[in-house]
């Protein structure tokens, strides 16, 4: 517990440092416009990162999230193009997200196939469906209200997606850290056999998480479509790695059982501020990505270095 708290403390210190450096480098950084822009550019990923935190603490992985985002967005675009009302298309796109999650859950929970394998397969399959629906052309004739949701402010200058992120972040924090469900997520991830032995409904918990992952990913896909005002077959391609990076950087163990929602949220802020700061310095996207990769390796190494250090000290004594 102490180690976790200090990990979050470390993340918080790093975040303050990045904010300070960015503010010192660029007068624009701290302006409301830039801060909103900073969130806006990655808002879909960070919403999905919240639910990914549940998935990984539970000892699983969901690689299909970006493909679900793509499939939901493309299905929406295709339906609108066929003349369906946009409101109904939104509902159906969310239902598709539900079905994608349920499909993953069926194989992972029902047949006991590792989630790494199942969601690797569905990552490819869902993306395939998205490309079949939209092919290589873009679809962009959405109703104005839909585009406005993605591009205009909902509360003052703050757009819908950011409001949703804030609400979801609070909900995710409360569910994970304060409810019986959250407690089950931790114990199942920490030791599945103990959880089963204690009478926990392990399969139901896992199924719910994968379904939630599907629905939230579909929602994120729709928000993405609204923000850019268009969909294409390759929309959100590769996002799963960015999302997983944020969660791991937040101190969630890839083996499950440890990590916190506040860690993930801090890591999200760090990644966003770092990318934004580098963009303001005109550092290219590819270098930004490289820096994030190094950061991830460091974040995994720090606990190991610390543990080795403690053990060495213990041995000397």
């Amino acid at each position, binding site marked *: 517990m102490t180690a976790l708290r200090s990990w979050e403390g470390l993340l918080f210190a790093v975040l303050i440092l990045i904010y300070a450096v960015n503010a010192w480098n660029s007068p624009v950084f701290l302006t409301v416009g830039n801060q909103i822009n900073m969130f806006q550019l990655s808002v879909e990923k960070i919403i999905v990162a919240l639910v990914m935190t549940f998935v990984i603490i539970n000892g699983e992985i969901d690689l299909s999230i970006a493909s679900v985002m793509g499939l939901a967005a493309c299905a929406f675009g295709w339906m609108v193009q066929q003349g369906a009302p946009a409101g109904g298309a939104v509902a159906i796109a969310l239902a598709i997200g539900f079905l994608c999650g349920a499909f993953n859950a069926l194989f992972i929970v029902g047949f006991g196939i590792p989630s790494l394998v199942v969601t690797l397969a569905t990552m490819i399959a869902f993306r395939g469906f998205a490309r079949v629906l939209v092919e290589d052309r873009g679809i962009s004739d959405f109703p104005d209200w839909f585009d406005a949701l993605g591009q205009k402010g909902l509360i003052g200058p703050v757009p819908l997606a950011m409001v949703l992120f804030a609400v979801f972040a609070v909900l995710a924090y409360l569910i994970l850290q304060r409810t*019986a*469900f959250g407690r089950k997520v*931790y114990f199942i991830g*920490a030791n599945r*056999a103990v959880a089963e*032995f*204690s*009478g926990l*409904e392990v399969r139901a918990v896992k199924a719910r998480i994968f379904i939630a992952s599907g629905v939230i990913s579909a929602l994120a896909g729709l928000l993405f479509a609204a923000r850019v005002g268009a969909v294409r077959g390759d929309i959100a391609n590769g996002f799963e790695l960015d999302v997983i990076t944020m969660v791991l950087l937040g101190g969630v163990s890839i083996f499950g059982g*440890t990590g916190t929602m506040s860690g993930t949220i801090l890591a999200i802020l760090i990644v966003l501020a770092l990318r934004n700061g580098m963009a303001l310095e005109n550092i290219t996207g590819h270098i930004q990505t490289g820096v994030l990769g190094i950061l991830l390796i460091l974040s995994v190494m720090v606990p190991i270095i610390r543990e080795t250090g403690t053990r060495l000290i213990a041995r000397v004594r």
Partner: protein
Amino acid sequence: MPPVLDMRDISKSFGGTLALSRFSLVLEPGRIHALVGENGAGKSTLIKTMTGIYQPDSGEILVDGQPVTFPGTAAAQRAGIAAIYQEPMVFPDLSVAENIFISHQNRPRLINWSKLNDEAAAMIARLGVSLDPIRAAAELTLAEQQTVEIARAISLNARILIMDEPSASLSDHEVKRLFGIARSLRDQGVAVLYISHRLEEIFALADTVTVMRDGKHISTKPVAEVTQASMIAEMVGRDMAGRFAREPSKNTGVTLLKVSNLAKTGTFRDVSFTVNKGEIVCFSGLVGARRTDVGLALFGVAPADAGTVEIAGQPVTITSPNQAQSLGIAYVSEDRRKLGLALTEGISANITLPMLGKYAGAFGWLDRMRELADAQAFRQQLNIRAANLTVPVGTLSGGNQQKVMLAKWLNTRPRLLIVDEPTRGIDVGAKAEVHQILRTLAAEGVAIIIISSDLPEVLSLADRILVMREGRIVGEFAGDTATDESVMRLAVAAPDTVTGVA
């Protein structure tokens, strides 16, 4: 002939527990040396010390009269020491020949398959058996896999072969074949250390027998000079002062659990017994007697295939831990790390886990104050020593972890408490505390089943003792009249010499 291995005054402790205490053993080439002792006598630690897995705290090991140290298993292997175990370690997808030569690092890079197979066949022939070297290990029987393991050891010029319970999973016919292999190795000058719970095997096979108890060397004698009775007496003999005092039974005479002809294919059969409210029934027996499997069946983890279970007169079919819990059954596992506790989680969270519903309000919101209050009550009642109730249980001592596990299941308010090895690996003080907790529960009317390999514990706690061997209940004793020797004799006896309940 000079001894090939000479272990002198070897000591090894873990935490505060002395697993080996100035233990000495001499192995001579061309002899089969048997090693016997109760569960927990230190046999496993001894083997691990001989094979370089553990390093002794003190004492010396001489090979061919030269002092040696084994910093790791490779060093022991170079010195010619090899071990095979009850469960053979083979690579299932590799052939017999590949398995035999897997550890040979200085073979040519290019493999001459026909030569490799010929050499493997020759190696197996040395053991006096035949086996096709190109068969995949996965297709072999357990006994044949063992043969492959032995051949691998011999191919590495092992001069000392440790066989740890090699016969435990074998049929009579396969045991005879194994004996043949052991004898042909002996005749080729290999020193064999043979460990078995089946005492009759020792008379059939060994030249010399060493008895160990509580990590100490008790005796080494030629087999011709010992009897089963004398071996058992030496295996269990303890200072009477070390025994825990008995207390009057709290048995109410009201039956809570009635099990009839419970069976699980390949595991246990014909298991019938009753437990009354307030009664403590102990299952005694050796490791592998399938006592834990009976407990897991009653808890619904690995349900039985046949037989009936009645709780308070109601017939029940238990198929999941969840259901067992709702029937008022709690199971404290022997395996704290794998099945008992989530070590990275806090004390109170572990305690309340099976009863989360009790603490959850609207939307599943947890009443953490109530969790902490209940955990605090157990902390005082069971004397759990911890800085606070949110520290990860992995940071506690074994005894305190054991108490957290008890608290976790007592919190479910069970009518029937099954406790598997309640005091394994915990110190004497914590042990006495756990015993007192179990007695108090019995006084409150809880029916208690204790599965324990610790005979003094069984003799001090049990109202009744059921002895299991090879998946069956082979006898029953009243707790106050049983002795170490009577229980042990039943637990180790060969099937055809048993006259008790079958």
